[in-house]
């Protein structure tokens, strides 16, 4: 399955289970953007392997995450508006700041998003945890822009 197909599948699952919870705008904008940015980060971590690449590549991903921040906060608001009392699964993550730990957690949790048997609150919990991991990555790597700039302007 391509990344594009995965994004569509995840959106369809949210639409299937959350049509009564989310407006068309929330599905088409907030969730759609957050899922696409999260998919991009998944692809980057898969490509990079266990070591961070050169600074300009990290900076590019940091900027992509930054572009999704508004939508991440909207996802947070959606989650807070849901009744989560029926959720059985939780995707809590013990916050870590080292790249290998971030990568391991993200690649472990991301596939859960595509599972058909999650409830909508559980799937949103999963997506929000992925957004959180991306923000931790952004926080711990936003200085890479300095190294990237200096490398290209010696």
């Amino acid at each position, binding site marked *: 399955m391509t990344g594009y197909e995965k994004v569509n599948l995840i959106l369809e699952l949210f639409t299937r289970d959350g049509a009564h919870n989310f407006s068309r705008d929330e599905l088409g904008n907030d969730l759609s953007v957050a899922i696409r940015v999260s998919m991009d980060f998944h692809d980057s971590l898969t490509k990079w392997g266990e070591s961070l690449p050169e600074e300009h590549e990290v900076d590019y991903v940091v900027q992509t995450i930054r572009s999704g921040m508004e939508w991440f906060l909207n996802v947070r608001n959606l989650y807070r508006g849901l009744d989560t009392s029926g959720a059985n699964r939780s995707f809590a993550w013990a916050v870590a700041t080292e790249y290998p730990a971030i990568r391991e957690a993200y690649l472990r949790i991301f596939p859960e998003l595509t599972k058909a048997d999650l409830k909508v609150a559980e799937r949103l919990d999963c997506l929000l945890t992925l957004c*959180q991991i991306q923000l*931790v990555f952004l*926080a*711990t790597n936003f200085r890479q822009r300095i190294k990237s700039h200096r490398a290209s302007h010696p």
Partner: protein
Amino acid sequence: MADGNCVNSIFELFVREGADDFNRDDLEGYLRISIRISSDFYDFLTKWVDSPPDDEIDSIVKTINSGAEIHGFFDVVDLLACLDTSRSAHSFTWSISSEYSAIRQAYLRLFHELTSADLQFPERLDCLLVLCEVQLLFLAINLHRKAGM
């Protein structure tokens, strides 16, 4: 809300040390937002020694997000990237932690360094950048609070 005098006095320190390289308007554009938001977060941490209420956390998370999303924090990064920091004698580090008490302690210590009179321009900018970094981590942790603090 940050004390306007505090924001102004920090900004004037940047203007004083950076006058050879930057005019006031440029610095205003690059730094004012980040100084203001960093001061707001300082006030938040000063007010809440431990266990801030949810609505207060929500408010400061939105404030920090506004500083990271469009301009602000990344302008500080871009400005520092253009500077020669080879003569900087001070460096500002903190042990990254997800615990509120550790974040609070580190931030309050670093913020006081930001107001120190004897820093060079790149050093003060580096200090501000570390403060932005701490705020971004606080934002990340509190995006999904049950997984954090």
